[in-house]
């Protein structure tokens, strides 16, 4: 395998993350690594701490202890805007779009280009169009209101918006949760397209088949702790399910260890 030859610096490295809400410990000593261009599936039961971990990564929550390294440099994001500046984008489950505004306005939400004191509509729509074309998504026009689009297309707009920041890491929270089969297919294509552009992705999902369709590696969390990490190429849905159900932090293996053990 090529992974064993040269090991690049991980684009994201979270080490020993702890987070408690009052008396409830949400995360205890969680580690996460993500390499450039890699697609990582983050799975686990409800309340396993997947979303909390991602919110700590984007700065929406603040960790109690532990470190987050981006490109090997320690960071302390105070809010999602700061992580955005480091090239980390999150696509929320409900897309976080303004339905009353059109596709172009949504892609540039909050940072509409301007000429003098006015919004530069010409630039805005032509740039938005370029982003949509680059992503090869099926949104017909940048002038359509977002609330008139179907769920899948709204998600395309959310992804296009994320892409327009030229991110290096995209986090997708339950991207296929409320999509039709067709829309899911298209989303998976879009994700492969993103991967081709070298964008690393983390997918939080309950649907293992989606992660197996596009992912490189899958990481399992259980009650706020790592219980296993596997390369998609070296595992099966069956095995991952088993880890989700009966894995413990004590017998957790990293993907590399699992490969070594199998060999």
């Amino acid at each position, binding site marked *: 395998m090529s992974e064993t030859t040269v090991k690049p610096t991980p684009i994201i490295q979270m080490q020993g993350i702890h987070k408690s*809400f009052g008396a409830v410990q949400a995360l205890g000593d969680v580690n996460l690594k993500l390499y450039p261009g890699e697609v990582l599936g983050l799975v686990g039961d409800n309340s396993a701490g997947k979303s909390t971990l991602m919110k700590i990564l984007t700065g929406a929550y603040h960790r109690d202890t532990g470190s987050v390294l981006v490109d090997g440099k320690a960071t302390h994001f105070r809010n999602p805007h700061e992580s*955005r500046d480091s090239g980390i984008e999150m696509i929320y489950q409900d897309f*976080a779009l303004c339905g009353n*505004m059109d596709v172009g306005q949504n892609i540039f939400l*909050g940072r509409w280009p301007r000429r003098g004191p006015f919004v530069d509509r010409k630039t805005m729509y032509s740039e938005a169009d370029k982003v949509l074309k680059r992503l090869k998504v099926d949104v017909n026009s940048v002038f359509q209101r977002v609330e008139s689009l179907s769920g899948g297309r709204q998600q395309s707009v959310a992804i296009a918006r994320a892409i327009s920041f030229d991110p290096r890491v995209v986090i997708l929270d339950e991207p296929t949760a409320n999509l039709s089969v067709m829309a899911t297919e298209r989303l998976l294509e879009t994700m492969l397209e993103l991967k081709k552009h070298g964008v690393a992705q983390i997918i939080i999902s309950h649907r293992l088949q989606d992660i197996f369709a596009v992912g490189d590696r899958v990481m399992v969390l259980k009650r706020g702790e790592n219980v296993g990490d596997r390369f998609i190429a070296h595992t099966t849905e069956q095995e991952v399910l088993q880890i989700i159900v009966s894995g413990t932090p004590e017998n957790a293996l990293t993907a590399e260890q699992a490969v070594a053990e199998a060999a």
Partner: protein
Amino acid sequence: MTTVPSGPGRRPMQLIGGWEAGLAIMMVLLYVVGTILNPRFFGSADALMSLLRDSARYGVMAVGMTFVIANKDLDLSVGSTFGLVGVVFALVFNTAHFDMGVVPAIIACIVLGTIIGLTNGVLVTFLRVPAFIATLTMLFIGRGFILGLTGGQSILYPIKARDYQWFFNLGETNAWGFNNQIFIALAAVAIGAVVLAKTRWGYETFATGGNEQAAIYAGIPTRWVRIRAYLLSSWCATIAGLMAVAQDKGTSPQTGLMAELIVIAAVIIGGASILGGRGRIIGSYFGALLVFLINKVLRESWPITRTVEINGVEVQVQSTFTLPAGAVPAFIGILLIIAVLIEPYVIRRRVPERLWAKLRGLPPPPAADAGGVAIEGVQTKGAMASDMAYDARGIGKFFARRDALAITLATLLWVIGLALRPDYWWHLPNTFALLLNYTEVALIAVGLTYVIAAGDIDLSVGAVLALSGSVTAYALKVVGLDPGTAIVIGLCVGLLAGTINGVLTVMFGLPAFIATLGMFYMARGVASWITAGQQLTGWSEYFNVLGRKIGDILELYGLPDPGGFLGALADVVSVQTVWMILVAVIAGTVIGFMPYGQRLYATGGNRRAADYAGINTGRVRFFAFLFCALCASMAGLINIAYFRSFNPIAGQFRELDGIAAVIIGGGSIFGGYGTIIGALAGAGVITLIRALLQLNVEGFSMPQHWVNVFLGVILIIAVLIDIWVRQANIIGELRASLRIARRRKKEDANV
């Protein structure tokens, strides 16, 4: 039975709790202070009885209101229902009208209460109109009916009432020495308390108010639960109205004025949450007693000793001091706001426990997650609007615009006016009069467009108009300031009101309708407080230039009339019109073409998404409130300049006109939409409707009160059109289904 060790432990109390005990202690303290300060009034048992008697009616209304508020709804119409019951009773009963017995009169009142409750409930549930806008409109419509039916006169029937002692005794003192109304109130409280705390009806209410979606999933008929609460509220107002009838043996058009403020404040002080899901009837009743006690204390005249200098000798004079009328609503408005803030900022943050622990030197218990103090409910959105404009062509493109309705209607109404009065409708004086009325509505609508587009509402615009007008008039007349300074002061007062609105909604997170409702009463109260006993008229004509025609100004400065077309123009265009157009152009440019406008629409469309996108939504909303209040105070300055005096009723019903104008002009009550062109066209529609209704056609013209009733109906219709036609796109769906049917027909024909 001794103990049950296996049970889940002692069940929590449902009917009463620590909050009620605190209220009781506070009332006793207030009463004791009142007795010490004014033994003549508070010292006797009679005084206590009269307090209990007068608060009984508010206590009864608070019972119904608790159900509504626990449902996460609001009923602003109770005060007008309360008053209207008296009027309807009088019309049926009084010798000069229908002259029937008490029973038909009571039945008529119950029917009225049922109609109002059902209307509120259906509007709010099935038709999805926001509760505050539906019931506020019902309030205005009810008040319009009261004035229209009574003609502003009291109706009294003490002689006929003697024949029906069994009913009118209900308002009198009984054999045990206390008033029957107290008994009725206690009975209503007891029944309400048990129903809300102990029965399925009550449990359904709390579930609906806590999480309506979850309640629907659990199979609770939430629409019926909410309609039921509105019916209860309106029946309680009916009972309260009948109690007042029994006591007064007559009615006055002032009855129940501002009762809704007292009742809502009472329920909130009684421990209910404006966010729904919390509330206890006994607490509400205690709240009603407390608010009424405060109301009474404020209205009471206090004996004071004044020192007067007569011929160089200081003489002590005994006299009394009474707060001016406007002070009471101002204080109760503040009380309402404070009461709403208690729940999220004191109770949820466990301030009393922490303070108590600190006093005893113990480590304080941890504060609840501060992030959890989200007082605002989730923004409720209307149905999905669909994009008709995108694929429409030609004339269809125009009608797909959200402001098409307003532009079409304005044109149509003007043509109707021309048809009704071809003799004078198009003349210059009429055009001038129309433009004058237009300016005030348009200025307010322009400001409201900002607030409504940001997803908020400002119910205080009419009151702020009056406040700025009164302060400016006071500065000009009583203080004797020059016009320039007075204008600056007037605008600053408006900005101050806007700042308070903004701080309460943005920083303290109050729902905009409740914060601005508080401001509505405060600003009106202060305005009538300032002007009490003053004749605010007759000041520098140079100030009045603001409300004059260009022609008049030329005359004032001794300039010649240009004559011809320019002369005609100078007779139609006034300074205020120019001012309004200037404001509208600036506001339109900002909202349409500048980033601030985009931020405004994004904030109103989806505040969370806008936050994620790095927009400071708090600042965006704050500026919208500021601008709206500024526009209202400009309208106030123009108003007093035009009339050359300040009239306390200035700006009345203007919040109704303004909101209706914005909604007709394409704004959405749920936020995210609204243009200045639309608002101007909407204001045109409102002005023309008012002008047309008051048009004298063959000797008949409609009185002002009925015009207000009609406009209330228009506002409701506009909101319904917005929700059901624009947002749910019913017309588009109809057209689509027609198209499908036509295609099928063609296919059938081809086969």
